């Protein structure tokens, strides 16, 4: 059997060549990325990247690496990594406060409160500074201004039969904001599961993400939706025919905390990023991106009333205890398999 000799030589050479190239390539990557801060987040990809650029500009020498996906995907990845004995993440930032409570119970979060953070309302500093609300997001009712002539005023306008089949919401199985909304609304007086049954009768369409809901609202596929506020303001500013209201029952605060993990590989860099988020520059960039700032004295984005907003605070204790039940009921009601 001498036949394959030539072939084998060739293969051997190729393999060695590839190996060398690969090692050089990996080595150069290692050198250039010295001790980055790694952030796992469900923040909007373009917004958090814009933030990264501004942060790195103001903190020379610190690199921020971002893993960005839907809340559930990020948590699944974290869960898997924790089970395997360690995560790459230095800090996490996403729309599932329940998970932060869980991590607190497991003592996996490092407390840190930047000096500026004390100016924010105390209720947005959780568990002694283990995690923080760095800007505010609300779930509200939004509508397409070309398709809806009478400005809605209530969450219940979503069940108006004249918009049957044209109403969209995000899936609580994917979106933390949608899950907070579900967990809050089932306990609101006059709402409960009855409200969701009526939504179903109105042939509501359950999309995966808030972004998709906002997009389909702009294109006119949906007439009225339940969606997070900043996306609507952003689309409106770009020229899309959309607007959102502050429902008379109150907009629902969607907690999206940020926290630093114990065992972070670059804890100083992570603290620097948290300080940046609370800085005047960081807060102003939030406003520019359409978010409501958490620090007083920073002017909010256009379209946000300066008087006190009607806000329903999310009932975290309830949501935390009834997580599985909420999901199971929702799955059954909307026949999501």
């Amino acid at each position, binding site marked *: 059997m001498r*036949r*394959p*000799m*030539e*072939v*084998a030589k060739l*293969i*051997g050479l*190729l393999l060695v060549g*590839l190996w060398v190239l690969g090692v050089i390539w*990996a080595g150069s*990557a290692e050198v250039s990325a010295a001790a*980055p801060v790694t*952030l796992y987040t469900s923040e*909007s*990809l*373009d917004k958090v*990247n814009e933030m*990264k*650029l501004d942060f790195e500009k103001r903190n020379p020498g610190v690199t921020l*690496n971002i*893993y960005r*996906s*839907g809340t*559930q*995907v990020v948590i*699944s990845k974290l869960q*898997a*990594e924790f*089970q*395997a*004995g360690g995560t*790459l993440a230095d800090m996490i930032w996403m729309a599932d406060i329940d998970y932060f409570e869980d991590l607190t119970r497991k003592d996996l979060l490092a407390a840190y409160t930047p000096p500026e953070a004390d100016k924010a309302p105390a209720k947005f500093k959780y568990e002694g500074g283990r995690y923080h609300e760095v800007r505010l997001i609300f779930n509200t009712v939004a509508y397409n201004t*070309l398709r809806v002539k009478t400005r809605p005023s209530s969450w219940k306008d979503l069940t108006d039969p004249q918009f049957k089949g044209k109403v969209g919401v995000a899936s609580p*199985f*994917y979106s933390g904001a949608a899950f907070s909304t579900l967990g809050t609304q089932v306990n609101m007086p006059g709402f409960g599961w009855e409200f969701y049954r009526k939504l179903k009768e109105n042939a509501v*369409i*359950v*999309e*995966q*993400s*808030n*972004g*998709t809901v906002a*997009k389909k*609202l*702009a*294109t*006119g596929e949906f007439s009225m939706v339940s969606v997070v506020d900043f*996306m609507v303001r952003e*689309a409106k500013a*770009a*020229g*899309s*025919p959309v607007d959102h209201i502050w429902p008379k029952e109150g907009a629902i605060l969607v907690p999206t905390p940020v926290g630093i993990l114990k065992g972070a590989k670059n804890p100083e860099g992570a603290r620097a990023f948290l300080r940046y988020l609370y800085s005047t520059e960081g807060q102003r960039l939030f406003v520019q991106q359409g978010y409501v700032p958490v620090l007083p004295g920073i002017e909010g984005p256009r379209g946000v009333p300066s008087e006190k907003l009607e806000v329903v605070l999310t009932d975290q204790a309830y949501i935390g205890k009834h*997580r*599985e039940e909420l999901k199971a009921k929702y799955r059954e009601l909307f*026949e*999501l*398999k």
Partner: protein
Amino acid sequence: MPILRLLLGLPLGLVLVGAVAYPSLILVWHAFTRDGRPTLANLAAVLHDADIWRVLWNSVHVSVWATLLGGALGTVLAFLVARTDLPGQRIFRTAEEPLFRIYGAPGIILVLALAHYPLAYFTVLASLERMDPALEEAARSSGASPARTARDVTLPLVAPAIGAGAILVFLRCMENFGIPAILGFPAKYFVLTTKIYATILDFDRAHNLGLAATLSLLLVAVAGGSIALQRRILGGRAYGLTRAVGQPPIFSLGEWRRTVGIGVTVFLLATSVAPLLAILLTALTRAYGMPFGWSNLGLQNFHTLFFKVPVVWRAMGNSLVLAASAATFAVVLAILIAYVQVRTQVRGKGLLEALVILPFAVPGTVVALAMILAFLRPVLGLSLYNTIWIILVAYVARFLTLAVKPVAAAFTQVHVSLEEAARSSGASLSRSVRDITMPLIRPALVSGWFLAAVPAITELTLSVLLWSAGNETIGVMVFNMHEEGKVLLSSALAVVVMAVALTSNLLLRRLTSGLAEA
């Protein structure tokens, strides 16, 4: 020669055991255990769920129809290009790229078929181009009509290729994730892959990973069954085919030439160019929902993409390096595997083939799950998780079979007697390899490389679960943006990806055609 065997066997064994066998076993372990104890609870939960059977039916339903549609499209197109005087053949030869895979027309079947028919096309085309036209010429000059020649000579000879192409299309449809995810989710239409993905992510559900692993075994059963069927149908049919260079068209389309030419052109325009234009226009749109017009067009999405989302650049680099490396590894391994499969009689060839096809037959989501379960903790001191290497390992395992198919087919078609003839005429081994084997299998190596590299550039299913901070791929970026509802941005990125894919494709084809002629 033990050293030679070692040299051949070591890389093969390392890849197949490390990247396929070990993760598969871990996956099976998770399917049949709970908290480390063996149990059939996962299996029972899956089999007693009426919904699973509906999801399974959905999968088979869309895949069968897409295979029929895609297989027919690919075969007819390959025949027209390789065997008739269809006008503009040279263009059609390079025009077949599933670039529109990222977005498509509504309808999972239609999009699946359009996205995958090039697999059937490439396979059949390669076979037709290697087939000696003298056989058909002989039939014609013996008085057979063109139709009879096509039916009795061409068709039987390319039947293995058609079967291989169809099975590729079917498997790719069964395992496809992106298309049913984007088109199926709003309609709550789940197929097995999207169901498994959802189960992996439903971490609130007890034993979700075990259930996902069990579901994936169901899909493996379907895929394995179809492969067994294919082998049964095609088993034992091997034809020694030889050279074919610069052959003249065999079948004249006659008065239909113009009509068929226009038809093919329109089809290609409608299925490739029109979606591309749609993406381009979306990418240029300033705001959704406003009437279409110049005032609503602009480059701001590209500006955002390039200057505010720095990760895009890195993702692009990662994907290109990953695709090239994975394809090169795959082709090198494919030569070894094809050689063992076709030219040797070692025991365990069936196992070898199973290991090669396994990562491709199961949904990528499950390959990713197996990789995660296998490499989450360091293995033999090597930590792959959260590095780019786990993606490379997954890509090589996944796309290996794509490279093996054409190379093995080429080895099959180069009858061993040719090499033996060269050897017995006094040619040295290296000369026989250089002058006989290599020229005959070179087109297969090139097409194998492309078959592995092209899907890797825009790969989504594996990387969406294996990527980590700093190790993004382009497919992940497009999907994440799309999933987030940032369609204007993802379209702008898709335009860039298509430009890169098209350019590299044309460039490489230029290079390889130069090679082939030399």
